[in-house]
């Protein structure tokens, strides 16, 4: 049976879709059969980040409504074996997500896939609730700033109270913190919350710290999961986080500011 992982945050723009794409690609690159589902009905983005927007025929909502078979809606990634995308509808809204419909899709996907990643929309309304409802594990994407941390805290509360596991009294959803857009230099200057501050408030295990990196935007714009940019700090940090998720013991990188050497300072190259 596959594991359902929700990528959630409460707050928008913190990197849920980027992280969903990166983790899905990361799992698949390691030979794990993975599907990533876009729950942001009406604001479809995942297909762009995954670079498959021109191959979408049917979507998640069509499957929920019985207008298409799951196999027709799944888009196979062209670059990575074992990677599938289930895009959502751009013309419908979150009310199209019925619990029964989502459950039927999840049950079917569980049989075929090892990992099912649910890319949650922002907010705490229907879309976000449906994305987290069936989760076995949750990756909480948080930026090192107070509003993001507070919203993540709220989502953690929802996971503990409103998920299927909570309602049925099963073992709670496993929580992981993914701190994104972290800039150790700005943290050092006191312009950004420190990793310890965030961990102190959220009090959940740290899965990874993704450094602020221009590679993320670059990758999104060309429809490439940033994990495939193996030369970028962000790509490497995502690869580490995926390895940790799979049980490997990998040391955290990009948490401390790197000392700029004389050469790079003279050349004025950003770190």
């Amino acid at each position, binding site marked *: 049976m596959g594991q359902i992982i929700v990528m959630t945050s409460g707050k928008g723009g913190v990197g849920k879709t980027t992280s969903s794409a990166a983790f899905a690609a990361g799992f698949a690159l390691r030979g794990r059969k993975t599907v990533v589902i876009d729950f942001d009905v009406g604001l479809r983005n995942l297909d762009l980040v995954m670079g498959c927007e021109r191959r979408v025929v049917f979507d998640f909502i069509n499957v929920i409504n019985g207008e298409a078979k799951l196999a027709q809606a799944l888009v196979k990634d062209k670059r990575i074996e074992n990677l599938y995308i289930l895009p959502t509808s751009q013309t419908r809204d979150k009310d199209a997500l019925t619990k029964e419909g989502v459950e039927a899709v999840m049950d079917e996907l569980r049989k075929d896939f090892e990992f099912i990643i649910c890319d949650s929309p922002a907010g*705490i309304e229907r879309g976000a609730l449906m994305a987290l409802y069936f989760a076995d594990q949750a990756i909480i994407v948080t930026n090192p700033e107070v509003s993001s941390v*507070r*919203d993540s*805290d*709220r989502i*953690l*509360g929802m996971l*503990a*109270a409103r998920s299927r596991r909570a309602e049925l009294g099963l073992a709670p959803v496993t929580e992981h913190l993914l701190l994104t857009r972290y800039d150790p230099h700005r943290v050092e200057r006191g312009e950004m919350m420190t990793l310890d501050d965030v961990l*102190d*408030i959220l*009090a959940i295990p740290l899965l990874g710290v993704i450094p602020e990196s221009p590679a993320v935007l670059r990758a999104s714009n060309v429809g490439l999961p940033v994990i495939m940019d193996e030369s970028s700090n962000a790509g490497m940090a995502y690869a580490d986080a995926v390895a940790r998720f799979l049980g490997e013991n990998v040391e955290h990188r990009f948490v401390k500011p790197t000392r700029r050497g004389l050469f790079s300072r003279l050349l004025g190259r950003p770190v």
Partner: protein
Amino acid sequence: MGNSEESGVTDTEIITEQNTPSQEQETPPPEQGEPFQLRGGSFTLMVLKLVDPTSESFFARISEKARLAPNFFRNAAVVLDLDGLPESQACDFGDIKARLRRCDLMVVGVQGGHRPHHEAALRSGLPLVPSGRPTRTSTRAAAPQVPPPRSTLVVSEVVRSGRQLYAPGGDLVVTAMVSPGAELLADGHIHVYGALRGRALAGLSGDTNARIFCMSLEAEMVSIAGLYQVNEDFDPAIVRKPVQIYLKEGYLCVESFAPVTR
């Protein structure tokens, strides 16, 4: 007894007695062929001492007492103690018996008093029982007037932002931290065995004795019985310290458990 100004209550002092008939020790062996067995037994009976049975409030006060512990008094057998009655006072035992019956008490006999009383009692079908030895006043045992225990709400997981917990009529104990944006409400005390970063409102329905205890004061707001203080007004010396918060002479007082360092 009877030395209180308040006539009704002490008029009817209720005493339980251990009544041990002497023949109990020498119970004869059951006789063969008899359709019955005759033997002694000892019983604990309630004794109702009549101080002033003519008092208007007599039966009303008994009813009141019986209502406090209905199970104890329901159809209870009582012996009337006549020691407090002057010899000259006539008693209608038939009437007393009938009225006590309406209070759910069954008179089974009389003790003490004077000969005319005994004769009157016998005419009403009440035998004279040998005087027993008083045990203890039953009023306390019969009517435990302890207030119902306050219920305590104990929460052992992190109270996340947006969650509101309310302990109606009692205390709230959280054995983990309370996140910013969470709200704790209690009619009694609030204990947080972790950092308190949300809001905490103790003594919600006006209990000015309610207190808030926490391991690290980082709250957005604290309030006791409606008096509140927001984070901005906290003395920096007590922030992030283990504290208790209580009302002292109408003011909210935040007291650190740790040595204060400025």
